[in-house]
């Protein structure tokens, strides 16, 4: 990577920053350059870091100057005071008890507030209001009560026996021994007398209650299963019973995955395993258990200069007689793949055209086709998993794409994936080790052109995360138990970014529990 020459002026300005000689005019100009250009900002950060690092590296030999280093001394003094405090603290206080409630599961759960990334297992601090912007979050109280909140929602754990819901939907499952557990809403209070109920609170605090199993008591009235009631101030009135409107379960999805880092780096390099919720069951697979794929078609006509690319970890494999598609097919390396497969705004409704070479009379379908090394059986929940690299500055739910059958038949259809199960905001989505981005130097109409078109490589330096999504073949209209031999993938061309598959595989058939 070389810094563009256009940054000479910027370089001078940042030098003035670190030399402490920046004038107001220079400051203005610096601001202009930074506003205009993300590369300029990256250079600015890197230059400041270089300067600070040089300071730290040389700090060992430096004599502290009384005035300038005052800050450090205050920090040191504060640290000493804190340390004494810490000792006292440990002498007088026992270890921390089990938290009242923890985040048990998260499905794209997004909590409001900068940096408020809640990892699964994190404590839900009592008496703190948690605004859940989107997704589902399952809480587990230490007495065994579980509650599934669906965003947007605002809730607060008050203590072992009280959950406050100020807004939004939730369902509560009360474990034996915790009867009497109550959900408080702004206008009412639901006390559990059995096992399972659901609550929906609107902006005005009006509360709807549905009892699924057991009993619940609201304002002295006992509700039994199948009952739905809506409460404003005063009496409740009956509403239709409809539990589908409530988050009764956590969704089937890719729950998490595990990776191995690159040697000497913290970024992830190899996918080692994944956990998927299929039909309500959480199952963990090692990568070798998954069903591999073969790329059988690729077409992307975007013009030069756009990213039409394969990702590699090193030089182009085609230069040494290797295969580019192997980057997606053969390895569990998530720094490699065949990305930007092209696409279409409208999803396919007929069989894709996949000739090699392309027949000019019958142009090929833009996109990428993969064949599973053995058929994937359609079960409940995800049957295929797709991992995608996503720079953290790009859409946080991942790049949407269409999935279509390779061969249409009555009942079969395309399906559009709009959100990845693990988006860039998910604490479960890991940062990928650096990689090399190779751009094809021309449009590619078929697989053999993908293999032979010259590549131009650049190192990719924007922090990127590994996103994952499960694809349910039922969404393509396949009946349960159907054996599927492949799928067609197209970007939806909603923006300049295309889906970037770095790992794609089928899940093994489900064994009956």
């Amino acid at each position, binding site marked *: *990577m*070389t810094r563009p020459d256009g940054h000479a002026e910027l370089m*001078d300005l940042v*030098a003035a920053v670190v*030399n*402490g*000689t920046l004038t*107001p005019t220079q*400051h203005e100009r*610096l*601001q202009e350059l*930074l*506003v205009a250009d993300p590369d300029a*900002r*990256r250079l600015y*950060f*890197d230059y*400041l*870091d*270089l300067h600070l690092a*040089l300071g*730290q*590296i*040389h700090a060992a*030999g*430096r004599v502290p100057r009384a005035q300038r280093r005052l*800050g450090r001394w*205050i*920090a040191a003094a*504060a640290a000493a005071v*804190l*340390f004494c405090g*810490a000792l006292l603290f440990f002498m007088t*206080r026992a270890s921390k008890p089990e938290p009242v409630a923890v*985040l048990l599961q998260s499905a794209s759960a997004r909590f409001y*507030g*900068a*940096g*408020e*990334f809640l*990892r699964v297992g*994190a*404590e839900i*601090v009592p008496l*703190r209001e948690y605004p859940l912007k989107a997704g589902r979050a399952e809480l587990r109280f230490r007495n065994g009560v579980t509650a599934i909140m669906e965003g947007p929602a605002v809730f607060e754990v008050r203590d072992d026996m009280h959950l406050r819901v100020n807004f939004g939907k939730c369902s509560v499952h009360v474990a034996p021994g915790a009867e009497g557990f109550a959900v408080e809403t702004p206008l009412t209070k639901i006390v559990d007398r059995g096992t399972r109920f659901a609550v929906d609170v609107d902006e005005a605090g009006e509360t709807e209650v549905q009892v699924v199993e057991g009993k619940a008591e609201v304002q002295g009235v006992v509700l039994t299963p199948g009952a739905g009631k809506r409460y404003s101030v005063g009496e409740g009135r009956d509403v239709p019973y409809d539990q589908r409107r409530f988050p009764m379960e956590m969704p089937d999805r890719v729950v998490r995955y595990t990776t191995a880092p690159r040697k000497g*780096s*913290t970024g992830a390099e190899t996918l080692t395993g994944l956990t998927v919720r299929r039909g309500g069951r959480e199952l963990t697979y090692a990568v070798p258990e998954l069903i591999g794929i073969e790329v059988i078609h690729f077409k992307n006509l975007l013009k030069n200069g756009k990213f039409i690319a394969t990702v*590699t*970890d*090193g*030089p182009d494999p085609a230069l040494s007689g290797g295969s580019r598609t192997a980057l997606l097919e053969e390895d569990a390396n998530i*720094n490699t793949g065949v990305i930007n497969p092209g696409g279409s705004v409208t999803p396919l409704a007929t069989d894709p055209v996949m000739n090699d070479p392309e027949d000019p009379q019958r142009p090929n379908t833009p996109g990428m086709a993969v064949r599973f090394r053995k058929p994937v059986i359609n079960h409940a929940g995800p049957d295929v998993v797709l991992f995608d690299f996503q720079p*953290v*500055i790009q859409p946080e739910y991942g790049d949407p794409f269409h999935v279509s059958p390779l061969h249409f038949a009555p009942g079969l259809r395309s399906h559009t994936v709009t959100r990845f199960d693990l988006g860039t905001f998910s604490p479960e989505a890991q940062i990928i080790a*650096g*990689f090399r981005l190779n751009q094809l130097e021309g449009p590619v109409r078929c697989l053999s052109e993908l293999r032979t078109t010259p590549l131009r*490589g650049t*190192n*990719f*330096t924007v922090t990127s995360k590994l996103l994952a999504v499960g694809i349910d073949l039922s969404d393509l209209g396949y009946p349960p138990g159907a054996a599927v031999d492949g799928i067609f993938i197209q970007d939806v061309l909603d923006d300049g970014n295309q889906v970037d598959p770095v790992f794609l595989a089928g899940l093994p058939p489900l064994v009956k529990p």
Partner: protein
Amino acid sequence: MEPAAVGKPPEAFLKEFALHHDRLFAYLFSLLPHRPDAEDVFQRTSLILWQKFDQWDPASDFLAWACGVAFYEVRNFIRVASRDRLRFGEGLLETLSKERTAALKQRDDRVAALQECLKKLDQGERDLLQRAYVDEESIRELAARDGRAAQTLYNRLNLLRKRLLECSDLRVGLQGGKA
């Protein structure tokens, strides 16, 4: 209700703070490119982080939380700072904050790369860095006495930093493959 500071041991704070304070300062310096300002706000932020430590969720990223608190302090600082101070506009501050928080994660790789690059310097270059970063007042004192001589030193220093930056770029970049 229990008093606010009961949840977490102060030792935990020291551990997190020690681990991240360099990055936190780097974050602040990029938002407030006048070093005394950055030091000022860093000081204030450190204290607030300690006071609010109980609000930090240990399962979340301490640095991200700290940067969030720091950003708020930066805005406070800018609001009350006198008009003639050098400061960035609100929009740029927000962009810088967001991108900086993300970029801090890769900082360690760059520091490691820099250390390799430093090994290749000759004695004259080492002396120059020594002068700038160890006896850091000496250039300022020189500037007060002899502005032109100081400018010459700054120019040499700027060129050297540029070279080190390019060397680090190359080392960090090369991890991904041969350029």
